[in-house]
């Protein structure tokens, strides 16, 4: 079984995001970047499938600037076999990414694509679903557990009411949720081995995909600052203040 895992280079989850002074986006200059945490979970799941003898090859793919190669290297050090970098300095929206991934999937013919449920930069939560629709494959979203049996995958999904287990036929797209696993740290020998694993570099044009954005960002702003509250002495005062504020009738 071949597993394809898309990985995205995003602002590190520890970094406090700052809006650019011209409100055109968030500050990326000199900001620490790393692999989207949900993608790390996807890579970990793929590596576990390989260790369990269920997967035979893991291919990671990233759409992004040259530096996204470091993100691919991180995945290779965790245990993926080879990488594909689709190099672009442009903004690529979820639909563009899904179209590129569809093209990669048609070329690579994986049995399973494990996609992070969302990237922590734009939190779109769209790429996996769009990809499955474009491919016409089954989807299992928000997975907290994946069991592979033959050409079937039992996917336990985190939904509002609790857990739901669905059985889907592969090839399929699964999106990983936070509790699917706890990603490993790559050991030094594996970091060194990863340097020798192959990474193919492509461009969106190689796949004949138009990634021109459909959306235009007009303005990015900080959430409004919370104003300081006041202390009230009595219940009566509280009620009158709430009435004043128009919160109660």
């Amino acid at each position, binding site marked *: 079984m071949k597993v394809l895992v898309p990985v995205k280079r995003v602002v590190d989850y520890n970094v406090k995001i700052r809006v650019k002074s011209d409100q055109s986006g968030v500050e990326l200059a000199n900001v620490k970047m790393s692999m989207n945490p949900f993608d790390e979970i996807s890579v970990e799941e793929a590596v576990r499938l390989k260790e369990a003898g269920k997967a035979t090859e893991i291919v990671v793919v990233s759409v992004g600037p040259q530096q996204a190669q470091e993100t691919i*290297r991180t995945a290779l050090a965790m245990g993926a076999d080879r990488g594909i970098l689709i190099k672009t300095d442009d903004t690529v929206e979820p639909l563009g990414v899904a179209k590129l991934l569809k093209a990669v999937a048609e070329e690579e013919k994986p049995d399973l694509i494990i996609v992070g449920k969302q990237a922590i930069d734009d939190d779109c939560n769209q790429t996996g679903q769009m990809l499955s629709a474009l491919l016409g494959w089954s989807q299992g979203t928000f997975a907290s557990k994946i069991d592979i049996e033959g050409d079937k995958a039992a996917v336990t999904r985190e939904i509002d009411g609790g857990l739901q287990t669905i059985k889907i036929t592969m090839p399929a797209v699964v999106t990983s949720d936070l509790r699917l696993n706890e990603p490993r740290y790559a*050991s030094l020998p594996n*970091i060194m081995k990863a340097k020798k694993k192959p990474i193919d570099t492509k461009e969106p044009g190689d796949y004949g995909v138009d990634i021109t954005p459909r959306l235009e960002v007009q303005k990015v702003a900080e959430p409004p600052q919370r104003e300081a509250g006041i202390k009230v002495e009595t219940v009566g005062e509280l009620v009158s203040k709430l009435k004043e504020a128009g919160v109660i009738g």
Partner: protein
Amino acid sequence: MAAQFDFDTTRLPSPFMNDSHHHWRAELRKFVEKEMMPYADEWDEAGGFPEELYKKASEFGLLRMGYPEQYGGISEGLDRFHGIVTSEELARLGAGGVTASLMVHGIGLPPIMAIGSDEMKERIAPPVLNGDKRISLAITEPGAGSDVANISTKAVRDGDHYIVNGSKMFITGGMRAHHFTTAVRTGGEGMRGISLLLIDADAPGVTRTPLKKMGWWASDTAAIYFDDVKVPASNLIGEENQGFIGIVNNFNGERLGMAAGAMGSARVCLEEAVNWAQERKTFGKRLGDHQVIRHKIAEMVRQINATQAYLEICAWRVQNGETPVADLAMLKVQATLTLEFCAREAMQILGGSGYMRGNRVERIYREVRVNAIGGGSEEIMRDLAARQLGI
């Protein structure tokens, strides 16, 4: 200054570090955060850490880095700057005692790798690098520390053996070590009468007692006593009476690592101080808005930056095959003075809460002196540098 201040915020971009170093830093940080950070305070208070950490650190590659592959090490593609990253990231723990004992083979093993026989390397290195065995360096004595040439532990040749008598002091990792790389007197007075001898901790006549310290509580520091200990002559490391040069060469690598560790600890102090200064309010404004506090912080950054620049140039020279003895000595002084300053100022900024046990600044504060004294005191380092400079 970034909105959020962390360990990396003020690190100068390095012309010597590439993706390989950055990747190692990222993974090592995950290892430290997962396997060590949650327990740092507990281990320090308990005066030790579980032995399984050696095994985990070996599997991860930490113990094996920089040693030849044939003995189970990992050396291909690694350079001095990977070592600097290692020292700095381990310092983030803010529990130097853990690092000192975990990485103690870093001073005990190199003399064997440098001048030991192939048979000895094959026997000793693999079990140490895979985390099963530990090796400590035993040089200092009650009557001789930096003054290595005056050690008095005696090894007298008796057929195929040496008979060893004497004692060693302040030996890091000494309580749990399986072997000691020991400086002994086999010849006359002075540096030309010193040999290095590998002594097994379980040999009859070897006894040890734990020593309580100001800091580094998690480290098992010991006094070692040798009473008519019979050591096979084949345990001689290198040639008889040629031990001094092996000891001195070992110091140079140790000083580079200690300087990087001290710089890392200084960065922890800076990180904790700035975060506190941005949060804590006094007299109606943030601590960080008081000029007296801001200047403390700028001064910490200035000293750390100077240390980083000096450190990286020294490492680059070592990488290129030089042994800049005077600079390595002065670098260590630079790094430990920076640490001393940053620990002091961070504690002043943190105030009462910093003085409470269980935080990194408090532990590091207790570790300032062992850094400024161990591996060559600041006074000895300056004098060594002056002599090297022909003054």
